[in-house]
């Protein structure tokens, strides 16, 4: 996965709550078996509306999405994360995230940042007032900075370390293969197998 240390870019304010993963990438886009090309499906239905914020040229090339609460609820489709990344987003800021989306994002190196609702609003307002506003998402310092503002955010040490290093979870787990084998030796005998 991509490592994430610090990223500076412009922000897109998405003033909607409960942006579910069916909106981020509608189901028709999930038929592909490759891992690429999902940026075309990002917010596919909403992008048909010329007034949708991503269609505003002022936000072209922005890389930080600032959304309403409960972003990424619903389906477990990791395609939502791929679509955001492939479109060019490096971080998503919201007051609350759907658990699975948030987990998927940290597996792929798209940083989900939780900030208080009022702080998210302030950042959205700043990006609306001046779309050229640069936002820095600093995982090292656990801070989001723009203009003269600084907001700290929380993220657990382990996930932060993994993101900073860009480490693949499977490789980390395989270091503990002996413990997995030992556990398997003690499983209850009645547990089902699919064979």
């Amino acid at each position, binding site marked *: 996965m991509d490592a994430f240390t610090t990223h500076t870019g412009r922000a897109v304010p998405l003033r909607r709550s409960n942006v*579910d993963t069916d909106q981020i990438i*509608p189901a028709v886009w999930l*038929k592909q078996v*490759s891992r690429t090309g999902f940026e075309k499906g990002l917010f596919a*239905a909403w992008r048909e509306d010329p007034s949708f914020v991503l269609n505003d040229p002022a936000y072209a090339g922005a890389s930080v999405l600032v959304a309403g609460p409960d972003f990424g609820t619903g389906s477990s489709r990791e395609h939502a994360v791929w679509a955001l990344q492939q479109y060019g987003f490096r971080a998503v800021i919201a007051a609350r995230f759907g*658990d*699975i989306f948030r987990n*998927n994002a940290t597996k792929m190196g798209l940083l989900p940042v939780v900030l208080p609702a009022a702080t998210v609003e302030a950042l959205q307002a700043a990006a609306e007032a001046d779309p050229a506003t640069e936002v820095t998402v600093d995982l090292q310092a656990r801070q989001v900075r723009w203009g003269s503002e600084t907001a700290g955010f929380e993220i657990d040490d382990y996930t932060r370390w993994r993101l900073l290093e860009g480490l693949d*979870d499977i490789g980390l787990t395989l270091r503990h293969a002996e413990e997995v084998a030992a556990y398997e030796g003690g499983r209850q005998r009645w547990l089902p197998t699919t064979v």
Partner: protein
Amino acid sequence: MGRTLAEKVWEQHVVRRADGEPDLLYIDLHLVHEVTSPQAFDGLRMAGRKVRRPDLTIATEDHNVPTVLGPIADPVSKAQVETLRKNAAEFGVRLHPMGDAGQGVVHIIGPQFGLTQPGMTIVCGDSHTSTHGAFGALAFGIGTSEVEHVLATQTLPAYRPKTMAIEVSGELPYGVTAKDLILAVIAKIGTGGGQGHVVEYRGAAVRALSMEGRMTVCNMSIEAGARAGMIAPDETTFAYLQGRPHAPSGADWDAAVEYWRSLRTDDDAVFDTVVEIDASALTPFVTWGTNPGQGAPLDAVVPEPDDTPDPAAARRALEYMGLRAGTPLREVEVDTVFVGSCTNGRLEDLRAAAEVLRGRTVRTRTLIVPGSMQVRAEAEAEGLHEVFQAAGAEWRQAGCSMCLGMNPDTLAPGERSASTSNRNFEGRQGKGGRTHLVSPAVAAATAVTGRLTAPADL
């Protein structure tokens, strides 16, 4: 201090615990389908890895498949299904393909085979994996990176979630179902209410539910934001399991049941959050908006946005849904009725719909889609298909069907459905489609009148 059911199952599966790291959990059963697995198998291939435990893995074709007989017309869908077949063969994973007697929606076939048992950890690249919690299993949805992780290692690193108790006291009134209960729960706690939690459903009304009803309730835990939903196993659970193909037998059965009986929350255990609901006050429930928390009793009217917790979202939702505040929900006309999905595609659900449709005629396009080929066979053995066909409904093959707009069963833009599925998101059932979530009984009654209707209204 005592432990909750979720904590007991979690602790039983910790392979490794270290300071400052998530627990490494062992996964007892991994369910796989065509949509969220191709990139995971690809990842294995690129890294030269194998599936660690093909014997704890099972695959089916459900999301993408048509529910009428014949080949898959859409070449992209066809390629995805063929990719699953190729991957299952290459990695030695049992697959139930289209047309197979064991094929069906992934969350319907696990319980049906007896593969879903109390105290297990179960994952799937699908958020409605929470369904399996009805057996007292810890079951949750994962993304494709995690699917690959489980395929490669049969484990998953995870942080222990918080615990929430939803205590449902009293008795559900006649005609009020598990679906109405869970829709009312979501409306009460909101789509983010369960975030970070495993929910345990408890109380007299939950104990009184059949396994099918319990699965309906646990299925929609994710719609309240929860990672998983659980119900402690009891005699109802054991009776459902006994004799199923993969359930233990003989001395193993006795040992298993003895262990399963220990899988209940200790009396002195403490939940992080407790929510209380009185079942006896509930009535048939429907959604009016574009998330499952935007619901109301069928007796109510479409609400004023300003009277809802999130007025801006409600205004957007009403605009998308083409509804006006103050309209009685019973006056909302629908074009299509869908009975099916992992929420309500089991035999009990089809019986409930058939009971309403017997001797009546539908006024809307009505799709009855069994959740699995076995459910289909069982329904036909009871003659339910004849009831549906006589009423003018379509009796389909098994699959996810109109639950999500990625197979041929979709709504056209602006079309409105009453659906027994679990998500009323914008475009969920097809671009521009409008969805009202309902129980199977309400779906069937709605098909008869063409307006949102409870069976008691007929």
